[in-house]
């Protein structure tokens, strides 16, 4: 792939003596929607935490937007154009919905970027339910609304790549049927997205390419449409019965 937005090679993540990610290669092309599926504990979230700078990798290299970012911290990654919607959403429950959105554009607000308000407006058009709750404490939102807020908040930093970690966690299918098309829309408008998802069926339906991770490694990868028909995927992740 020529000039990908994200290119991860030989990524290793360990917690003390425990290896969570044991050498992983992942690429996301510009404008691409890529998924990572795999069971609980496969190392998906650890890999995302290393890519977004939340934790330092034990080995390997991460290139983002043409530059080596292997040891960069999360706040530096945001400045470079990588936003992560973290597992468990991590909204600031004791601040209002609007304050959460402003925090999403922290450095832009600090330098008084006048276009932040436009971007908040655009995010609210994407998630009208947040508009009704703008002055409400974010902790009082439902799980689905919190996930909307987490995505909206991630967009305010104007990312070049949006990393979404476990979008479906704890959410009802009805909410997921609303959220996944919104991600697909954002991608159609040009945003590169890397989606980590345990619910393989949802991920395979919206992404273009998918990596399958187990035990800290990528087992195989390919176009999502093909993997959705692949026996190995059908058996292990889509619950096909023999």
């Amino acid at each position, binding site marked *: 792939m020529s000039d990908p937005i994200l290119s991860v090679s030989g990524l290793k993540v360990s917690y003390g003596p425990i290896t969570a990610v044991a050498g992983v290669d992942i690429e996301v092309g510009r404008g691409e929607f890529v998924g990572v599926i795999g069971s609980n504990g496969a190392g998906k979230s650890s890999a995302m935490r290393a890519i*977004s*700078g*939340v934790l330092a990798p034990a080995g390997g290299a991460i290139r983002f937007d043409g530059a080596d970012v292997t040891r960069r*911290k*999360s*706040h530096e990654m*945001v*400045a470079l154009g990588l*936003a*992560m919607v*973290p597992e*468990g959403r*991590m*909204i*600031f*429950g*004791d*601040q209002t919905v609007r*304050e959460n959105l*402003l*925090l*999403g*554009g*922290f*450095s832009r*607000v*600090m330098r008084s970027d006048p276009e932040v308000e436009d971007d908040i407006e655009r995010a609210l058009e994407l998630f009208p339910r947040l508009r009704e709750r703008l002055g409400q404490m974010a902790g009082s939102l439902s799980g689905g609304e919190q996930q909307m807020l987490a995505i909206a*908040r991630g967009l305010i*930093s104007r990312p070049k790549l949006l990393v979404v970690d476990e979008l479906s966690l704890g959410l009802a299918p009805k909410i997921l049927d609303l959220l996944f098309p919104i991600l697909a829309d954002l991608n159609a408008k040009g945003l590169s997205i890397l989606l980590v998802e345990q619910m393989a069926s949802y991920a395979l339906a919206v992404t273009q390419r998918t990596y399958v991770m187990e035990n800290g490694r990528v087992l195989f990868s390919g176009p999502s449409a093909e993997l959705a028909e692949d026996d190995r995927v059908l058996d292990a992740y889509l619950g096909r019965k023999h």
Partner: protein
Amino acid sequence: MEANLQYVLSGLSIGGVYAMVALGFSMMWSVAKAANFTHGDVFMLGGVLTVSLMALGLPIWIAAILAILIAAAAGALIERFLVRPFNREANAIGWMLTTIAIGVMMESFGTATYGPLPQPLPSPLAVTPLRFGGAGVFPQELLLPVVAVLAMLGLRLFQTRTHFGRAIRAVAANRVAAGLMGIDADRVTMVVFAAAGGLGALAGFLIAPVIQASTTMGLVIGLKAFMIAIIAGITNAAGVVTMALAFGVVERLIEGYLSTSARDAFGFTLMILVLLAFPQGVFGRKEVSKV
């Protein structure tokens, strides 16, 4: 009755000192989840440095402002070199050792250079006492609780009305999430430590005309302020200030009705009992476990 009024007034005064120092512990704990045990000595710097700088010929206000700025810089350095490197893992306690050790060194170094004796800090507000019936109190003493409450309200306003203030709350709530917003959580923590250091030194400067400035003035006040913060619920700034003022009054009442030597024995016993009844602090909420 007049005796009681006297106890309350001078209790609010010492309580105001506890409040300003305890508020610093609260601010620092909220963002770093660590207690900076040099804080009592940073408080001491406010009095001792002001006296030392005045001895060089500086006027009191310049000396005080310089002392507060030096204490703020000390707060930032303490965060950067004594707390941050020793607070990387969840549940790390290395910062306890480093801050206690450097706190003791600051006091020894102060005693070696400034001398072991308390020195007076003249203040126009500590010359003529105000009379309330038979009770008397220096305006300087009344200033302390007023400044403490103003500091708490100012902090609250800053944290709710400014963008950087919101970032401080974000770091306090969830460091990882704050980083993902593009907030440099380490820098925010350092700024908060500097502000806490400056506030502590302000308290040291304001109380020095009443108790005189000595290098040992920070030890017991720092410890008490920390304990007050704990029994109040350390992340609740308003609760910490309220508890500090109340504790100051209780101490004076014990002194008045029992004796000065009974003060700490009864005061600390009371604290232990309060903590037994309210393990999260009287105004505390259950700490959400950090990930």
